[in-house]
């Protein structure tokens, strides 16, 4: 991360990114170049810029994220925009990438671990310790109940047939690798992400 020193060249690119033929979120249908440029100048002044990548599709548009540490110590995300240096997107973003800030910061996030007992009509708020303890005990019990060491033909197979893991297309690669490593070591055979569905 580095302090922002927005050069004239970058400013021009920011403006272009906002209203490019293919990029930019301009549902209003008129040219926002001037307004956006002025507003962005104020929003990102003195901000810290970090590098990120769009969380949506696998074009892999590079993002610049501008943050500021407020007086209360909270880090505020001010702005997300296309990275003009990227050979992939050259600063452009589509409506999803351009609105990524609203995915990042939202009132709709799950506030804490939640637990729903069998047959219950509502969630209960629980602690991390409770939730992870339950999950670990469930995994152990299901693994022990459904683990097959030797199949009907006498082959050593060492597999857990009763638990599945699915997900990962939103993981960082390193998280995905860890998921594979841990799940395979538990003996999972049912392993899936969004490649097929």
């Amino acid at each position, binding site marked *: 991360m580095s302090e922002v020193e927005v050069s004239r060249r970058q400013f021009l690119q920011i403006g272009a990114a906002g209203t490019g033929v*293919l990029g930019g979120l301009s*549902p209003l249908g008129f040219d926002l170049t001037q307004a956006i440029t002025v507003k962005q100048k104020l929003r990102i002044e003195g901000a810290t810029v970090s*590098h990120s*990548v*769009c*969380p949506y*599709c*696998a074009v*892999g548009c590079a993002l610049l994220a501008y*943050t500021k540490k407020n007086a209360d110590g909270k880090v505020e*995300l001010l702005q997300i925009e296309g990275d003009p240096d990227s050979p*992939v*997107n050259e600063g452009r973003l*589509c409506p999803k990438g351009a*609105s990524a800030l*609203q995915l990042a910061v*939202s009132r*709709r*996030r*799950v*506030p*804490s*671990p939640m637990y729903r007992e*069998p047959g*219950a009509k509502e969630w209960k708020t629980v602690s*991390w310790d409770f939730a*992870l*303890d339950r*999950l670990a005990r*469930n995994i152990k019990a*299901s*693994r022990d109940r*459904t*683990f097959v060491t030797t*199949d009907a033909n006498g*082959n050593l197979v*060492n597999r*857990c047939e*009763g*638990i*599945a893991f699915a*997900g*990962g*297309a*939103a993981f*960082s*690669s*390193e*998280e*995905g690798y*860890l*998921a594979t*490593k*841990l799940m395979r*070591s538990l*003996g999972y*055979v049912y392993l*899936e992400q*969004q490649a097929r*569905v």
Partner: protein
Amino acid sequence: MTNHWRDIRHADLMLINGANPAEAHPVGFQWMMRAKIERGGKMIHTDPRFTRTSAVSDKHLRIRTGTDVAYFGGLINYVLQNNLEHKEYVRFATNASFVIKESYNFTDGMFNGFDEAKKVYDTTAWAYEIGPDGFAVQDIDHPRSVLNLMRAHYSRYTPEMVERITGIQRADFLEVAKLVGEMGRPDKVMTIIYAVGLTHHTTGVQLIRSGALLQLLLGNMGRPGGGMNAERGHANIQGNTDHAISWDILPGYLRIPAPGQKNIDDYIARSAAKKLHANSLNFFGANYRKFLVSLLKSWYGDAATAANDFAFAHLPKPASDASWLSIFDAALRGKMEGLMLSGMTATSIGPDSNQVLQALSNLKWLCVMDAYSTTSSEFWREPSIDPSKVQTEVILLPATHWIEKDGSFTNSGRWAQWKEAVLPPEGEARHDHWILAEVFDRVRALYKEQGGKYPEPVLQLVMPYKDVRRPELDEIAKEINGKDLITGQRLTGFALLKDDGTTTAGDWIYTGHYPESGNLTKRRDGIQDPAKNDPTGMGYYPNWAWSWPANRRVLYNRASADSLGRPWDPKRVGIQWDAVTGRWTGDVPDYPATADPAKPDSPLPFIMTGEGTGRLFSNGVADGPFPEHYEPIESPIDNPLHPKVSATPVAFKYDERAGRPNRFGTSADYPYVATSYRLTEHEHYVTQHVDQLVALQPEAFVEVPAELAKEKGIATGDRVRVSSKRGKLEVRAVVTARLGPLTIDGKKVYQIGIPIHWGFVGINTSQHWLANALTPFVGDASSRTPEFKAFLVNIEKM
């Protein structure tokens, strides 16, 4: 992608099938537009719908969904009938001259080797004739050479047949075929671009192979501006496929071992490709053991020794397919106890949502890790479900977002790009990898305390992180890269991996991305200085991020040059042989860097295959060595090629096998073809939580062809009921000319379009219909990818 986004601008012709990049990959689409604008490249969009991609294409071919094998088959036939293939390339870089065993046969829709009882092919029945030297016999003029068998196979795909099956009129087809035929010239290059939609068929793998066959015939694989390019639909689906969150593989596309493989020797014998030509390098096959042993050393450390076959016993050996459909089938059969979902909602994403909801209700427990609630975390209170009847225990864990953690995303072009942690975790949210690591550590503690079934892999797994419950992604990236256990130094490439237990690599295809000099995925030498950062001018930008393998930007790039190493097109160089320095220059070569091509024993161009060439004929697929058109499982017609074998004989029909009632409909009750897709403003289901995107695209709808709407008295904005044998949607209709009628085998056929994004969770919960309530629970024979994109429905005005 064999190539990458920026590379598409080198294409003379772009065939876009089963994709809508202008709307689904808008920023990637700029590279197609640049091919069009900057070099006059032509764009052909072949799709059931006229979309924004079609609007800027040179030609839109309206095709019946699920019939692309026939379309590509027609193009292959046109090329072969008119001798338009790139002959030198075909001889040099494909298996066209390999001779196939006499037992090969294809009659009335059936290949040889079919097992009636099991309803599968014995794929080893599709094999090469082997000579006395142990290698495949080669003779391109032999009646059973791959090329001659291919000619015979495809001769049935005449323009008339293409029209009967696909609905593409003969004149339109021939206009495109003529353009495609020109792409066999060495100075021309074509790209094929597709998205997951092309795979969402019971013939999905063969749809993609059909394109690859055409590209091999035209000499376009391995070349800048060419290749087979899959636009992937989630930020890191590529990275996490590479790292094997998939039942059938281990990291780096090593096969998961199968029952009966007692040791690594057995495993290698059944998994690694065999050398089939004296000059084949067979790099993958020859080094398979090194990659597997280095993986096992990463995972089991000192517990993996030569004496215990590097803990090979610890790897689970699945009994049969364990992919998406199989998970829910097992749950329906009462065999699945628990399911963990992360950033993926089963209820919305899988086919036949009603059946999936039943499957979730059968589980003992479900754990959802997500930043937002999902249709899976809330499945027990889906509008039609009585929660008191659902006995599934559900745990919802708040996970962090991409922007709250670092790590890399690998894009469609295989570029691994590092991202920084921008924000601290929101509230109580925790990183997925911390959740997984801590749960694992707790399970391990339980095994230590209580013992249990086969605890060794759980107890012995190496967790080499400062905090085993809170590993850093930087630490994991180093583990993936791997190191030399003797020097302790991280490795610079997979060529250094060994099979004696002295090296590690969590995923060999990423070895070299994080050498001692630093994490190369963080590199940022981009278009701020093209002269410096793109020295070849070809757009490789080798110091922007890092691409697997070995920072190579175009796969198979040895085939971009002729047998002597001269580029097919000097204006678009992939790699070329420099006799002065004795090296290949350009992109990172997909070939030994100093192998002189003039030497008679120089390796064949496709170094990863046993043949040393690209494969026009292959026994690596479950449903045929050549692609064949089969109708979708639910289809309005019988297959004009072989009506008695209309759909593929080898699709696994879960409900039938499990003795559950039939859930497939017929055209008598469901007369319209339907297909599903995304809109620009949404990404699957998560964007139902994003205000701006919900404001832009607030409500579920279906697209109805104007002529059909007239017949049914439906106007835009009317509420309609769309139903399949499995479920229904009650949503608004958008009447459109984007979906016109087709004449299929003499019959008028309408196609209805169904965007997928809505559900009972999100900002606008009145939109509770699940598009996948309609889709069928069946998949491709090889990959089991569900047939989301071609099924039958009825539509009524409400």
